[in-house]
């Protein structure tokens, strides 16, 4: 169930908020924030036509720095809330944002089931490789051996191979962006929002305060647009290889996409042929037919 691009133009300033920004100088959130606004406006979506759901973390502090119907929830739980919202009203594009800590620790179960359910939502992973809002603890994506707050000797656990993990769950859309390239992120987000099912978008994000390993410069030196290099998102094997390689060169762009898999809602047999949404269907129902067999 794809989001259709609206006719007419929407100006980016419609998304402008009076709330003052509070992110650190050089924070990757500024770039992501800009790209989200460009993508939504570029798709012809007015703020009142979208639902933006934020998890907890520095990215979540952006929930009041943009227009749109927004939600700012609890740590790790943004996916089920966003999925419930979307299933209730398929006419509204729903985008869920979360950091790497919440996504791969407390909320990892939700991520697994979102991928296998293929919920028709966009998921944007703000990957700055640490819990920044709680002052720089290690997440499952922090590099092993990297001293962090609460792990002065580096984490004893292995770093989670996140892209291998994602691909093991048979995703239908995987993309990777870099917070320093707004144009690339905008292209990715526009495609993600229009994707048929669950769109997983990882944004590698600089955190100048706590991430002293995968810095803005580090990422800038290594990232490249794989699509511009000729990568075909339909090529699963190459997508997996590119996604997992994040050492010398980091492949960004739309790494993988298939549109032939129905999303969760499309698979709900009771909803077939219905034009209305659950929101529109709220009224009193005559249930006497359902109790006939109980007499």
């Amino acid at each position, binding site marked *: 169930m794809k989001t259709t691009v609206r006719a007419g133009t929407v100006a980016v300033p419609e998304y402008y908020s009076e709330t003052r920004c509070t992110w650190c100088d050089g924070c990757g959130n500024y770039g992501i924030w800009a790209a989200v606004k460009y993508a939504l406006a570029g798709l012809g979506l007015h703020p009142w036509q979208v639902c933006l759901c934020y998890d907890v973390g520095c990215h979540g502090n952006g929930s009041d720095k943009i227009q749109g119907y*927004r939600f700012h929830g609890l740590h790790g739980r943004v996916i*089920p809330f966003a999925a419930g919202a979307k299933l209730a009203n398929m006419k*509204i594009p729903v985008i869920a944002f979360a950091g790497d800590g919440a996504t791969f620790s407390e909320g990892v179960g939700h991520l697994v089931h979102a991928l296998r359910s293929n919920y028709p939502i966009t998921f944007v992973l703000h990957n700055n490789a640490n819990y920044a809002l709680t002052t720089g603890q290690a997440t499952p994506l922090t590099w092993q051996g990297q001293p962090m707050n609460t792990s002065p000797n580096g984490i004893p656990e292995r770093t989670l191979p996140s892209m291998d993990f994602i691909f093991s769950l048979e995703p239908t859309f995987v993309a990777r962006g870099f917070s320093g390239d707004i144009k690339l992120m905008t292209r990715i987000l526009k495609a993600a929002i229009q994707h048929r099912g669950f769109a997983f978008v990882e944004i590698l994000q600089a955190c100048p305060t706590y991430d002293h390993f995968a810095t803005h410069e580090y990422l800038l030196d290594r990232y490249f647009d794989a699509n511009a290099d000729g990568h075909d998102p339909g090529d699963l094997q190459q997508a997996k290889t590119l996604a997992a390689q994040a050492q010398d060169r980091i492949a960004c762009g739309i790494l993988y996409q298939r549109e032939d898999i129905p999303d969760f809602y499309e698979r709900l047999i009771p909803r077939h042929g219905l034009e209305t949404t659950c929101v529109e269907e709220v009224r009193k129902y005559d249930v006497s037919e359902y109790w006939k067999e109980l007499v």
Partner: protein
Amino acid sequence: MSRISVKIAGASGQGINSIGEIAGKGLKRSGYCVFGYREYPSLIKGGHASYQLDASDERIRSTETKINVLVALNHHGLELNMEDLKENGIVIHMTPGWQFPERHQRLIRERSLQVIYFPVDDILSRLGARPVLANVLVTAFVWSMFDQDINALKSVVREKFAGKKALVELNMQCVDAGYSYADSQERKVTVALPAPDKEFSSHLLVTGSQAMGLGAMHAGVRLYAGYPMTPSSPLLSFIADRENETRMVVKQAEDEITAAHMVSGAMYMGTRALTATSGVGFDLMSEALSLNAMIENPAVFVLAQRPGPATGLPTWTAQGALLQAVHACHGEFTRCVLSVSNSQDAFDLMPVAFNLAEQYQVTVIVLTDKQIADALYTQEPYDLEKADIYRGKLVTDPGELQALTAADRYDPGAADGISPRWLPGSQAATYCAQGDEHDSTGAVDETGANNKAQTEKRMQKFRTLKAGLPEPCLCLAGNGKQGHSWMDDGDEIELLVIGWGSTGDAMQDVMCSQELRDRKIAYLHYTYLWPLCTEKLQNLAGRSKRIVLAEQNYQGQLGMLIKMECGLDIPDKILKYDGRPFFYDEVLSLLLEKVTGPATRSRVTGSAPAGQENPRDPGRPSS
């Protein structure tokens, strides 16, 4: 009122439920009020289980501990349930060559029990039928003992196996064989039933879970997300089984946290969505409860109680989660807790719960328990005109939407604490449903003045809500004979009983009993448990000789809330915490004991005496 009870006992998986359901439906259609009660362990095959049917020509809604007929499908059924039989009771068993132990032989003599061996295996092999057909065979045998029309039974069986022609044929043969076996006996044993009341034949036979599911559909619930957990699972199954007719979105979530957040998201978007769980699952859901309080999102969570702590007794009943429902979560905020009591209000309260949730923008926790969830009620067809859909301050009019500003959403100036709500997709100013403390637009605001104002806004809803909730209902013993009540004469109440939830139905049956006809006993039943209204209670307490609290928990949790809210202390308590519901005869004798025994006056206490300073080192083992 005359009532009889039949208990079918055996191993889980032996088809006890089908016998209970077929016989129950047959009796109900013949004009009896049936109440079905199930006991079963938390396993699939084996273990001891039972299904008891109590039937009467008048309205009943409870179970007796003593039974008229025991149908024992295996010898464990005999060993464990012989003691339950009343004087002149009947035992039907299927164990060839069974020798009753000495104590049971004595019981048979003392209580003049009649023992019938019903050779199920012989009859089945003669018919060439599989063991699973024993259910129908046994049911038909019992049916003939009740002296009921064989065709009535046949039509129930035919419906149950509709569409499976070969199976219907064989089942009919079993009905004939079971029914005629009784006639072939030299001395036909019969159980006398009272004359039927045909009104019951058009009633429904529903479990509390089915009633709640129907109520939810009626209330406009369009999305259900849940994770299986007894005793909430039958609600999930019932709703899922009808999804092709209702066309609802049904999601079996990966856990209760997911279910709670999914329905919260769906409610935020603007539909009506429901989830249900039991205590352990509710623990997981409680973070969403707190979240919804902060974003002032309406929600309805069903909490189906069973004994805890931990997984406790999964398939048994309790009322131990009242304080959990009232107090779960961090932070101070307004919620509403109500409890269903039977198949009537399990239906009626679903629209009410959603209306309250949307009108006050709060979470409504609807308590039920295993007893209500699983019990089989004879229920008159629901009145579909009674409920209306109220959505509170939901703005949908385009003109009104245009006039809104973001600051209207959480406006702390709303006198009743309730501010306008509008839905994503509405062409209007947008806002943030903000989990952090926020200003009127949902923008984060950490100032002290704002925190104070928004806290007061959320807590103002408690006062508004409390003012809008009904007081508890009163049910009187010996009432309604000439349309005149002793209560109206201002008489002293001999005994005032206070309870809630599934306790209510046993109490109401007892209030209707002959034994209490001349007693001035009143039962006060709480449906709306939080915020707790105590004015009516305090008025009644003032004219009561004795007050007793009846609850299915250890602490007397409603009593604790009553004391907390109005200072009324009720030291006299009937507390049951063995996983079993209140039984009719048990409650009757307890209440008779209370009215004849020495009185313990309830009192309004001042401050408790100061405790002595404890010189002990806490945590040090006492030698």
